Every structure is written in C-alpha cells, then in structure tokens.
C-alpha cells in the first residue's frame, strides 16, 4: 500500500491552532452524527412498539373488553397487546368491562402489575370473567369509568387505550355519544385497538373519534392493518433526521476533507 502523497512542512507549529480547531469541529460533527443516528434508531424503534398507542408524556388507562363477543383468536391479540404495555414500563390504570365496567388497577400502577392478567389470554388458563362477568359490550361505560378514574386521580394529561372488538351494544348509543362528547370537550385522547373488528366498526369509531383519537385494527395472523387509514403517518421526524445526517456528512467532506490539489490549468 503506497503512502498518501503529502507536502512536507517546515513550520508545523504555525498551523497548530488551525489543526486544533479542525479536530474540535471533527469531534463535534462526529458527536452530532452519532446523536442523529441514535435518535433515528429511537424513532423507528418506538414506532414498532407499544409507544404507537401509549402517548408519550401521558398517563394512560387501559380499558379491556371481556365481553362474550371477544373470541379465542381475539384473546391472543389482546395478550400480545397487553405484553407490549407491560414491556413499556409505563404507569397505567386498568378498566375491565363488558356490560358494566370496573377499575381493576388504579391510575399510576406500574405496568408490571398487568403481567398476572396475561395468562388469562394465553388459552392455558380459564378466563375467570367468562362465567359471570362476560356479557354484552358497552364501550360507553368503559370510557366513562376511565375518564372518571383520570379525574379522581387528578391526572391532567391522561389518555385512554381501549382494547376491544368494537362490537358495541345498540343500547349503548346514548351513553357512547355522551362520553365521546365529554372526551372531545376535555381533549382526552383515545387510542382504540380493534382486535378482529369489522371494517364497519373501525370506520364508525374512526369517524366518531375524529381528532380525539385513533383506531388501530389488529387482525389475527396478519398483525396490524386491514382497514383503510390504519397505516402510520409519514415519518417526518425520521426524514428530517436523515436529511440532517446527510447534511452533516456533506459538511464534513466540504470543510474537513483532505486537501487535494492538481496541476494548474493553463489559460486558454
């Protein structure tokens, strides 16, 4: 390997100051690049995990549907979703609901407390709610209780994650309207996770929630998606970060690149 061509310098000390600043700029650029890469990784990593429905900086209440309409296939999806919440390490509340709703865990409980619930959705252990609690689905009652829990615990920046097949009871219409209006008025975001929900139910809740929340459809075997509009939003932050990294690299090449020279072109 031949050594890189260079010009021998006789007065290196005169360039010491410039060499020092070049080193500083190089280190600063490298640090920015590494920070950009780490941030880009975090952005993409979080978009895959439960952070997609657990709003950052908010205290979520999980409302879990235990009605008869939730099938075995649904329960597998519920288990996966709950596992994501457990892994998130967030502080959560838990509402279990069917025809009625009750607070299973108060707001601010460590998500590890959800772990004992997981086994009931794995299919090995009999679901204890099936015999006595499971009946119809009243989403309005669940949302109302979740909102009351946020109020009672004095949480200002709460959110609600509802995990259900979204097959709401026709007799729930009035309560659902009243509750959704209250959520809109108080600007409490709702993240609905529709497990094997019909496209009509997904479309209805998406229309009804509007800016107050989102509906994500999960289907057994296929994971997320299915219904239109369930795709993720354009990753603006990621694109900006990538552009920043490219800019920093270009700057590095332009300002700190090795000095090159060539033969002077003779004037024509």
């Amino acid at each position: 390997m031949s050594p890189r061509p260079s010009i021998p310098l006789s007065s290196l000390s005169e360039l010491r100051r410039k060499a020092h600043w070049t080193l500083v700029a190089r280190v600063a650029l490298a640090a920015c690049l590494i920070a950009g890469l780490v941030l880009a990784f975090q952005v993409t990593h979080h978009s895959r995990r439960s952070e997609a429905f657990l709003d950052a900086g908010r205290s979520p209440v999980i409302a879990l549907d235990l009605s008869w309409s939730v099938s075995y296939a649904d329960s597998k999806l519920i288990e996966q979703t709950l596992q994501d919440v457990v892994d998130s390490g967030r502080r959560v509340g838990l509402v279990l609901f069917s025809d009625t709703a009750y607070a299973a865990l108060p707001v601010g409980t460590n998500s590890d407390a959800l772990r004992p619930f997981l086994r009931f959705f794995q299919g090995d252990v009999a679901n204890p709610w099936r015999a006595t609690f499971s009946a119809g689905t009243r989403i309005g009652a669940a949302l109302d209780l979740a909102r009351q829990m946020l109020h009672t615990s004095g949480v200002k920046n709460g959110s609600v994650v509802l995990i259900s097949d979204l097959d709401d009871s026709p007799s729930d219409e009035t309560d659902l309207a009243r509750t959704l209006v209250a959520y809109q008025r108080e600007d409490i975001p709702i993240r609905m996770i529709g497990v094997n929900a019909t496209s009509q139910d997904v479309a209805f809740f998406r229309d009804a929630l509007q800016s107050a929340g989102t509906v994500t459809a999960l289907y057994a075997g296929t994971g997320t998606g299915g219904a239109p509009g369930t795709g993720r939003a354009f990753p603006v932050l990621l694109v900006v970060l990538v552009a920043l990294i490219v800019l920093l690299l270009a700057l590095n090449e332009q300002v700190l690149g090795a000095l090159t020279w060539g033969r002077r072109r003779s004037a024509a």
Partner: protein
Amino acid sequence: MTRGRILLVCAAAVCVVCAVLAALLARDVGRWPGAIRSGDLAAAGSAQSHRAVWSVDETLPFTPARRLLGVEDDVAFRQAVVLFRRAHTPDPTFAASPEGAMIRIRAETALAHTIRTDSNHKRASAAENMLGILALVDAATARTANATVDRSVLAFQDAIRLDPSNEQAKQNLELLFRQSSFRTSVRGRERLQRSAHAGASASAPGHGY
C-alpha cells in the same frame, strides 16, 4: 470558478427554489376561497349536502396554505353543520334507527370538537345549540329508561354563555323547560323548587329576549 462565484451560484439556486415554492404556495392559497364557496353551495343543497367538501388538493406537501390561512376551524364547523343536518331529521323512525344513532354520534363529536377548538364564540355557541338539540333527540330515542335531558339543558346554557345574543338557544332552553319531560331531570326539579325564570334567565339580568 472562484469560491465567491460558487457561493453566488448557490445563493441564486436557493433563491430560485424559494421563488418556485412561493409561487406554488400563492397558487394553493388562491384556490382556497373558491373551494370554500363551492363547498358552501354544495352544502346548501338539501339533497347532496353530505357530499359537500371544503378541501384543496394542495401542490405543496403538508398543506402549508391551509395552515397559513387558518381555515381549520372554518372547515370543521361547516363539516359539523352538515353532519348535524344529516343527524337531525324530522323522520322519527330514522332517528330511532341504529344508523340514525351512529350519524348522531358522529355529529355530536364533531360539534364538541368545534366547541373546544373554535375561537369564534358565535360559532361555538351555534355548535352548542346544535349539540343540545341532538342530545335531546338522544334522550327521546334512548333505549334505556333513565335518559334525561340534562345534557341538552347544559348545552343550551353554555350556548347562551358563549354568545348572549343567541336567541335560538334561549328559545330552545325555554321550550325545553316548558316541556313536561323536564320534571324528570335534576335541573328541571331544581328550577321547579326555585321557581326561577328559564331560558332568558341564562342571560345577564335585564337582558331577556
């Protein structure tokens, strides 16, 4: 090419890009008034009102013209009104049907969104009035026995608070108080006990209608 000349060429290129972006933005901004007008015209027609749209397919990404003009609340209010018109029909069979209930829920959340976000108090008051009317339909068509008109009373009162000149909300509140059904509501019972004046009493003293 000297360093200074390179910088000048770069600056010129940036200026050209900025000029193109500004021209595209101006074009998008100029299309909005027409879109609002055509949406209003479509909404005014009773048959096709639900097909009314107030949107522009903007050339620039992230809809900067829409943000610049601040038409979000104008469009949201218009969409809520269209939903209200669909939800509030004189047909009691439709009102009691699941489809009617679903449209009503959509309309109510849209109106609630307008009330929360619209800085125009007159418009927010009109939305509260419409929300009160739909809540009344909810109570009338409820499948549960304990449905009350409290929501409507509160909505009409809020409408009057937001815009004390909202005569429709006052009349609706007065009418609601006069209906026999108000005896079943907490507010109605309170009013009976206090023998207070109804609709107009929500205004400042001395300013009825």
